[in-house]
């Protein structure tokens, strides 16, 4: 049987393997080729599967109060999702604290849907068929800020404080390896192995680093959020486990999101 003309783009991981076989390949050209490969993966980003599920979860009546999240206030008014992520983290008067998206979602799941906090945070990071609702909701809500210019305000005293504390934490050296966030993300033009590292202390680096999370992580086959990114950085820094939605995570997010101001938000993205 003659096959129809097919141009099939499969997200198979074998493509880059051939690059490392040739000992004469220059490291920078390998980095560039990997970047090209990643560009090709943008179309058909599996993150869209999480976005579709998240949109459903936002509108679905759930929890003991059998209510949907459609009245949840993400900072721009009840139910306003478009552009909300580009302004987070921010201070919320009803809780009188600075919250990032994920802590705000848990807040709404508890107050509007009547869930217990332990149920709302039962699975923060998914794995295969063990799915995380927070990841799906985050995927959809952030997709509604795609293209919106980052605009984190530092108006409220607590927002200013969160930024300052986030900066202090960014430079906190600890653990058996003496690592701080700054160890890897405090200088421009550096990389770990062949992974370029954004300098998060400067505008261009912070913009690139922050606006591409959440992302579908191909190596894990999962959509990962910014809370996950911080948790996994600390794991690799040899720190103990970062508590989901903790003050340190919110302060760091405030510091990094604010540093990214002025750039168009560009997630959910796709990464290695």
């Amino acid at each position, binding site marked *: 049987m003659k096959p129809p003309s097919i141009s099939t783009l499969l997200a198979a991981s074998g493509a880059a393997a051939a690059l*490392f076989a040739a*000992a004469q390949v*220059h*490291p920078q050209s*390998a980095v560039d080729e990997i970047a090209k490969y990643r560009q090709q993966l943008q179309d058909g980003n599996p993150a869209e599967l999480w976005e579709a599920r998240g949109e459903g979860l936002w509108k679905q009546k759930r929890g003991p109060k059998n209510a949907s999240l459609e009245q949840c206030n993400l900072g721009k008014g009840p139910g306003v999702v478009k552009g909300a992520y580009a302004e987070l983290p921010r201070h919320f008067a009803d809780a*009188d*604290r600075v919250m990032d998206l994920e802590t705000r979602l*848990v807040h709404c799941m508890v107050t509007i849907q009547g869930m*217990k*906090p*332990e149920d709302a*945070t*039962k699975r*923060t990071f998914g794995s295969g068929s063990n799915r995380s609702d927070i990841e799906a909701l985050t995927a959809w809500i952030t997709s509604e800020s795609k293209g919106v210019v980052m605009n984190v305000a530092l108006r409220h*005293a*607590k927002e*200013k*404080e969160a930024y*300052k*504390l986030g*900066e*202090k*934490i960014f*430079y*906190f*050296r*600890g*653990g*058996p*390896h*003496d*690592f*701080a966030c700054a*160890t*890897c993300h*405090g200088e421009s*033009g*550096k*990389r*770990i*192995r*062949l992974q370029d*590292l954004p300098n998060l*202390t400067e505008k261009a680096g912070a913009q690139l680093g922050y606006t591409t999370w959440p992302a579908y992580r191909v190596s894990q086959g999962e959509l990962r959020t910014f809370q996950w990114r911080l948790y996994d950085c*600390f*794991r*690799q820094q*040899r*720190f*103990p*486990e*970062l*508590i*989901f*939605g*903790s*003050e*340190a*995570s919110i*302060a760091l997010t405030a510091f990094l999101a604010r540093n990214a101001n002025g750039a168009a938000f560009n997630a959910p993205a796709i990464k290695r």
Partner: protein
Amino acid sequence: MKSETYFIAGLAALASIAAGCASMSDQEAAEKALQIMKASFKERGQAKLDRLDQDEAQKLCSNPPSVTLPKDVAERIEKANLASIKYPADGKLMGDWKLGERIAQTGVGKQFSDDPKQPSGANCYACHQISKAEISFGTIGPSLYNYGKLRGASEPIQRYTYGRIYNSQAFTACSNMPRFGHNGILTEQQMKDVTALLLDPASPVNR
């Protein structure tokens, strides 16, 4: 994820942030950041909360680059870390470079996801170019290609190299490089093997 942990972290934060005023001094911010750090982590696997206790060097080195460490403070850090270096009792500082290459390629060790019974790697290639053949290397640290060829493997060079691996801050206060011996990441034999990787004339680093 325990609800009590989440709530306690939240309540403690409410209490402490409510007490804060409009603008904190740098010192206050540092103290508050430490408080928040301790309340924001939980132990897991081999990673206990004492990992958040900073030693002298870590405390002094937790500054943005805009803050330059006074010369006497830098010297104090280097002196204290130099004193911590324990050289092998048998006086032999070079081991097997082939094992050194494996240690340089391995990134596991000390993470809460790692098995504490397994040996750690040094993950040298994460930050350094080392042999010519390995193109997957990082640039956080300087290239170490031809390290031994350029310096020779005299006794003082061996001592310096072993010492650098043992405790980089003995020579450079606030160095980004982990203190592999001082913080118990690598064993004595492993450090000898990495020293050999850098200095042995037969090592691919020097060919």
